[in-house]
């Protein structure tokens, strides 16, 4: 049995370490983050193009180099677009942090194992091989809490893997009409 961090405390650490970054959520993070944060620069990418939250966040980072962007992704989503690790580095964006929540399963479809789980894929090694200057993994809550702020301050783009516990009874509800959310988000971006 591998070590893991309960999902909500893992996210609470990030919430508490956050400054004024844009935060893009999807899947499991989109379910939990709105319960922890109601920041105007939160963008919940639901419904999404599967596996593409890091790319939407990269577009924001390129559009707004004056702001830091944090992108959440699941490990299953990550597998759907692994090439995005290369695209992120190649873009030259340094104001970017990708946080992958690894639980080894596709929660949304009922908890089936990912191929990466069977193959014991090392996502941090993949990120380093793609050229991320900063890449770290955490499977202990105290360690994550102690090092979150310094990890977010490392040279970007940054890759953070959080090994998190699986969540039973997955349910993802819409945070509201997309058009209204986009309008509010763009207003917040313009004002900040």
């Amino acid at each position, binding site marked *: 049995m591998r070590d893991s961090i309960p999902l909500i405390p893992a996210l609470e650490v990030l919430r508490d370490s956050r400054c004024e970054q844009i935060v893009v959520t999807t899947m499991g993070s989109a379910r939990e983050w709105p319960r922890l944060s109601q920041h105007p620069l939160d963008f919940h990418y639901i419904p999404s193009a599967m596996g593409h939250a890091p790319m939407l966040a990269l*577009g924001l980072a*390129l559009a707004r180099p004056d702001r830091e962007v944090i992108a959440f992704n699941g490990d299953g989503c990550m597998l759907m677009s692994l090439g995005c690790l290369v695209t992120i580095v190649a873009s030259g964006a340094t104001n970017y942090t990708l946080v992958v929540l690894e639980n080894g399963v596709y929660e949304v479809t009922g908890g089936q194992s990912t191929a990466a789980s069977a193959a014991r894929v090392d996502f941090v090694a993949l990120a380093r091989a793609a050229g991320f200057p900063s890449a770290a993994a955490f499977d202990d809550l105290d360690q994550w809490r102690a090092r979150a702020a310094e990890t977010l301050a490392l040279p970007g783009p940054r890759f953070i893997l959080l090994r998190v516990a699986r969540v039973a009874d997955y349910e993802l509800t819409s945070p509201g009409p997309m058009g209204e959310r*986009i309008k509010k988000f763009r207003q917040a971006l313009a004002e900040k």
Partner: protein
Amino acid sequence: MILPPAAVVSAFEQMGITHVVWLPDSALGPWESALLGSPRLTLVRVCREGEAWTIAAGLHLGGQQPLVVIQNTGLFESGDALRNVLFDLGLPLYALVGYRNYLVPDSPDTARRYTEPVLAAWGLDTVLIDSAAALPRLIEHYRACQSAGRPGVALAAEGKG
């Protein structure tokens, strides 16, 4: 057919494009030097075409004017990303799509055969750019789509791919 790179870049600049998000084919690839030479355009390279649509979405949300540049084969590949950003997010993104083998009479290329039916199925507003002389149509079409707040696609006619 390879559209003249300098004329293409000039058209993009007149359109007010800020970022070209692309995965080129052999007819689009020769534009690379001209794109890199433009002080008004930033080139963003992707590994797969679906990335291009979602990066463009983020750029648009952040206040930029992106252009997706891919081949029609990549258009097929990126269908879910296109569907999401154009119809779920409702963003008026614009793409220039290489139309492989359009200029080859009686080509059996299935990419050629299905391009327009697929775009029609998406309900996308399209324009054909089949020569350098047609580049003003690209500018006009882009402006019309942006003005109406709707997405659009320009098909760049290509020869043998």
